[in-house]
């Protein structure tokens, strides 16, 4: 007897109806949880061509299978809807404590349909679900809203949108409490379009586990694995900022809207030692043994008193590199993003884009109302507030770089996006790796979080002539311990030439990360390096009592990936869209430039590895047949 799966809670804001239903057995076996549920449910529920900001769009939150157990890093909840930014499958993942509350309230997934006429918020306390009037919250920034709701609903975890979401800024985020968020793909605008200000969840029910002792054993093993990862100690100390200096050295940061490759004082601005200067304590999400987050505080200067959970690589790259701000302004920028609810990566991209347009004379002081320059924090923040309030030129920029570029002559060259979503931090011209290819193959557009080589080695940056390989660079024990089927391992990693095959590794990495997003664990490098499907299967078996093998998990994950691809194709994704911005093929940084044809060849190889048509990038019928998806081929 155990509590897996929970129920699916369905709330229709148009009619005010609230219902819950059991998860269909088929959904459990084939899709597991988290992003798997989201993919299946959204594929069935959202009509083709639906307006992302209209009544037909469906917003779904699903906590991963293992969330609510102490399995290391099991805290994550996947939120999905059709994206207003890309027009395709929009999805984003966040940790902290929301998922635990959702699970203990008895729900695996929360489905929000329809659109309310007036602002509302949802309160969930086990079976008791209410839709309440949110007029008194509408227009308030996120931290103030959290303060009010924490008073009213003590102990609840809160997902909410800020003014950016209310104003339908296309890259608005859904904030997860004060400091975390479902940032990418503009889900905040979807929630804002539904006139839904917040969701407060409190669960009081315990989760019964199929085999408690076995689960605790899997937890212990999982913790040991993560602690033995080569990057574990560095991560507990500095978090994601470890990667910042290596990328700067390789001229692979997004400096000044991807024009410079690196900045002369990058080490001081964005190096990991800023943790020592501004950070204090570490802070963990539910069940995490890495605790990569830090409390950061600015003690003096014009931003004195700013206090956030921060010092992650994302804001540092977005605001420090793309916009060229200094460290204290980066921390202030994260605060603004968290309080007003916008995605940090896209915000950095849009600001960098606007500043470059200004420098090129495409937009002028008259359009903006003030001068813009890289590194000018006050101007950047003024512009950011204009975007959040959709005021003047901010109204155009709030549409994201792709749509904004259509409004100005000759501007599309400076819009750095893939499939409409702004590219994060890493410049593939400076460093070509599995990660770079992953931006093209990503199911949500220009993004870095759905594909990364589990054994990425930042010490080396050898570009292979044919773009097919990246350096492995570790000793044999690392290869031996990697949790991957042996035949696949020998295909993906060649010890003799010490290389990783990018196409093969991309598929494995995508499926692995997708699995993490299904079971609700985190993709921090110490986890990716060590926690493979074997230990996850062990934990899933102990928790659910289902007979699941590692191979089943990977197949389920691949099924989800293919289904999302089908969703995107159904919404009109074109094969040509999987391309970097023109700039990367035409302008070099210190001789680093991308070769379009060679990248196309890698991409075609990747399609073949996936069992997709090499030319069109569409899943083959027999691949879909193998994954039980053949009925979904419209």
């Amino acid at each position, binding site marked *: 007897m155990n509590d897996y799966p929970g129920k699916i809670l369905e709330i229709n804001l148009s009619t005010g109806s609230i219902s819950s239903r059991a998860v269909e057995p088929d959904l459990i076996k084939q899709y597991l949880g988290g992003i798997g549920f989201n993919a299946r449910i959204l594929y069935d529920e959202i009509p083709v061509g639906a307006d992302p900001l209209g009544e037909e769009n469906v917003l779904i939150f699903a906590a991963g299978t293992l969330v*609510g*157990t*102490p399995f290391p890093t099991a805290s994550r909840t996947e939120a999905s809807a059709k994206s207003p930014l890309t027009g395709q499958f929009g999805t984003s993942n966040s940790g902290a*404590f929301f998922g*635990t509350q959702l699970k*203990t309230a008895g729900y695996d997934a929360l489905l929000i349909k329809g659109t309310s006429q007036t602002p509302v918020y949802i309160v969930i306390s086990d079976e008791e679900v209410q839709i309440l009037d949110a007029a008194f919250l509408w227009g308030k920034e996120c931290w103030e809203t959290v303060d009010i709701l924490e008073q009213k609903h003590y102990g609840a975890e809160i997902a909410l949108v800020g003014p950016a979401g209310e104003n339908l800024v296309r890259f608005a985020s859904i904030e997860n409490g*004060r*400091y975390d968020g479902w940032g990418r793909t503009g889900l905040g605008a979807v929630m804002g379009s539904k006139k839904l200000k917040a969701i407060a969840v409190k*669960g*009081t*029910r*315990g*989760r*019964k*586990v199929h085999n*408690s002792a076995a*689960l*605790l054993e899997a*937890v212990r093993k999982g*913790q040991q694995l993560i602690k033995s990862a080569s990057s574990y100690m560095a991560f507990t100390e500095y978090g994601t900022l470890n990667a910042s200096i290596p990328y700067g050295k390789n001229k692979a940061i997004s400096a000044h809207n991807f024009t410079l490759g690196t900045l002369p004082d990058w080490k001081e601005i964005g190096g990991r030692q800023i943790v020592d200067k501004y950070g*204090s*304590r*570490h*802070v*963990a*999400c*539910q*069940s*995490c*043994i890495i*605790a990569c987050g830090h*409390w950061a*505080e600015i003690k003096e200067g014009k931003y004195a008193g700013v*206090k956030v959970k921060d010092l992650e690589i994302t804001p540092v790259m977005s605001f420090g590199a793309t916009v060229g701000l200094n460290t204290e302004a980066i921390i202030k920028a994260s605060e603004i993003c968290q309080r007003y609810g916008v995605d940090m990566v896209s915000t950095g991209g849009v600001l960098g884009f606007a500043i470059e347009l200004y420098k090129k004379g495409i937009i002028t002081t008259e359009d903006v109302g003030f001068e813009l320059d890289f590194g000018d924090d006050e101007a950047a923040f003024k512009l950011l507030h204009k975007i959040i309030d959709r005021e003047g030129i901010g109204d155009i920029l709030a549409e994201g770089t792709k749509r904004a570029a259509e409004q100005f002559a000759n501007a599309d060259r400076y819009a750095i996006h893939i499939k409409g979503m702004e590219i994060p931090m890493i410049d593939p011209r400076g460093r070509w790796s599995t990660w770079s290819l992953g931006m093209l193959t990503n199911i949500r557009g220009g993004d870095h979080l759905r594909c990364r080589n589990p054994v990425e080695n930042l010490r080396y940056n050898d570009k292979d002539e044919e773009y097919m390989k990246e350096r492995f660079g570790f000793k044999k024990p690392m290869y031996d311990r990697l949790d991957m089927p042996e035949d696949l391992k020998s295909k993906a990693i060649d010890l003799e030439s010490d290389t990783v095959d990018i196409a093969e590794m991309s598929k494995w990495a995508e499926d692995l990360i997708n699995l993490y997003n299904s079971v609700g664990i985190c993709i921090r490098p110490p986890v990716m390096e060590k926690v493979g499907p074997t230990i996850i299967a062990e934990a899933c078996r102990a928790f659910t009592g289902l007979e699941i093998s590692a191979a089943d998990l990977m197949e389920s994950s691949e099924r989800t990936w293919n289904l999302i691809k089908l969703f995107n194709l159904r919404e009109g994704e074109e094969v040509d869209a999987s391309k970097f911005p023109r700039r990367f093929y035409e302008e070099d940084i210190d001789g680093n430039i991308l070769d379009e044809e060679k990248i196309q060849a890698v991409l075609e190889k990747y399609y073949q590895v996936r069992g997709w048509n090499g030319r069109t990038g569409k899943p083959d019928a027999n691949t879909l047949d193998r994954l039980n998806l053949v009925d979904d081929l419209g």
Partner: protein
Amino acid sequence: MKRIVVNTEACDGCGICQLVCSAYKAGQWHPAFARIKIKQLQEFGLNVPVVCMHCTYPPCEIFCVMNLIYKDPDTAYTLRNVERCIGCRACEIACPFSAAVWDPLNEVVVNCDLCGGTPECVNHCPTGALIFMDISEAADKKRREAAGLRILEASRGFSE
């Protein structure tokens, strides 16, 4: 006299102790069923584990109208006969640390019993924020650190 000693500096708020405690003590996984609680004080950037201190003169013992709370003669743990608990929750409010906790499953108040001498929360704490050690030794360690700090500060005063 071994007790759970809390190092707030090291606690990052992962909450593993709560889940493990609920699994061992309630057979179900939920932070609310745990005898140890992590209180997040986001305004200070702090996470504070709260757990029964097993006081020598426990206020909860005085406030229990049913006389269910007692000091174990061998271990000096503060224990209780929950079977006869009427759920008035006076002990919960009386505790200066709010370390007596409501058990929503059985509708009684419970406190940490140190798992009879091998507290599982301590075994599973990944950061070393929870330490099971002799309370006198812990105090002495603290005393030593404080003395060292005082001397350091004094010597700094001389050099400046």
